[in-house]
């Protein structure tokens, strides 16, 4: 792959956009020729991050905006998912497996664990009252990436 490629997408924080977001990112990353398993992992990660922004960031308020930024640099795929919602008070606690701040919504508390497991690098930045940004990276060792 010569040069870097990127995309940016902003959309309303509505649950019907969760499927749209994961399909859009999967289509973008497909140029690295990932395996089906890698595509499934990336779709799951996008779904977790966008769902968190909708449920926790905006508490279901559909006027919120979720922004996805994805980039391809060599064989590395980077993804950023951000919102300008309520932010996370305690990031360490939020990252604990099975922790959820909304047990009444039947959340499994596995979102962060899944994102950390399915990606190679994971960072979260959050300002209470100012929003959250999740930044992740994954190396796609495809045939295409090796030959270019």
């Amino acid at each position: 792959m010569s040069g870097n490629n990127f995309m940016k997408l902003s959309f309303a924080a509505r649950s019907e956009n969760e499927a749209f977001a994961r399909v859009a990112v999967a289509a973008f990353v497909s140029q690295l020729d990932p395996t089906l398993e890698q595509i499934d992992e990336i779709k799951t990660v996008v779904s977790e991050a966008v769902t968190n922004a909708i449920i926790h960031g905006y508490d279901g308020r559909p006027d919120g905006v979720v922004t996805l930024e994805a980039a391809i640099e060599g064989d590395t795929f980077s993804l950023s998912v951000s919102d300008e919602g309520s932010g996370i008070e305690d990031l360490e606690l939020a990252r604990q497996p099975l922790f959820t701040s909304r047990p009444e919504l039947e959340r499994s508390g596995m979102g962060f664990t899944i994102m950390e497991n399915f990606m190679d690098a994971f960072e979260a930045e959050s300002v209470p009252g100012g929003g959250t940004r999740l930044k992740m990276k994954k190396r796609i060792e495809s045939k295409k990436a090796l030959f270019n």
Partner: protein
Amino acid sequence: MSLQVELEQHRNVLIVRLKGELDHHTADVVRFKMEDAILRGRCEHVVLSLKELQFMDSSGLGVILGRYKLVKSRGGKMVVCDAQPSVMRLFELSGLFKILSLHESERSALASLEVVS
């Protein structure tokens, strides 16, 4: 993206076939349909048949865990069959496979329940 929920009652067992994508957006449909069928049909056990479930995320784990608790509180069992590799991975990562027994087909899932009922 949509999700289809197909329900079939086989004696005291409710068979739930999920087709499509199970996420936060589609989780409510699964919750309402299963709850209604379990309570109205007086089903004791549930077989969750996932052959055609193409996608699931942690919202799916949440809704499955919630229905598991309902079935268990009524003295029943919930078993899963025919899950795709990506769905299996989430069951493994979350530890859900420790409480839900996994089967290769609806037939073997039903057979396992007929022994306990």
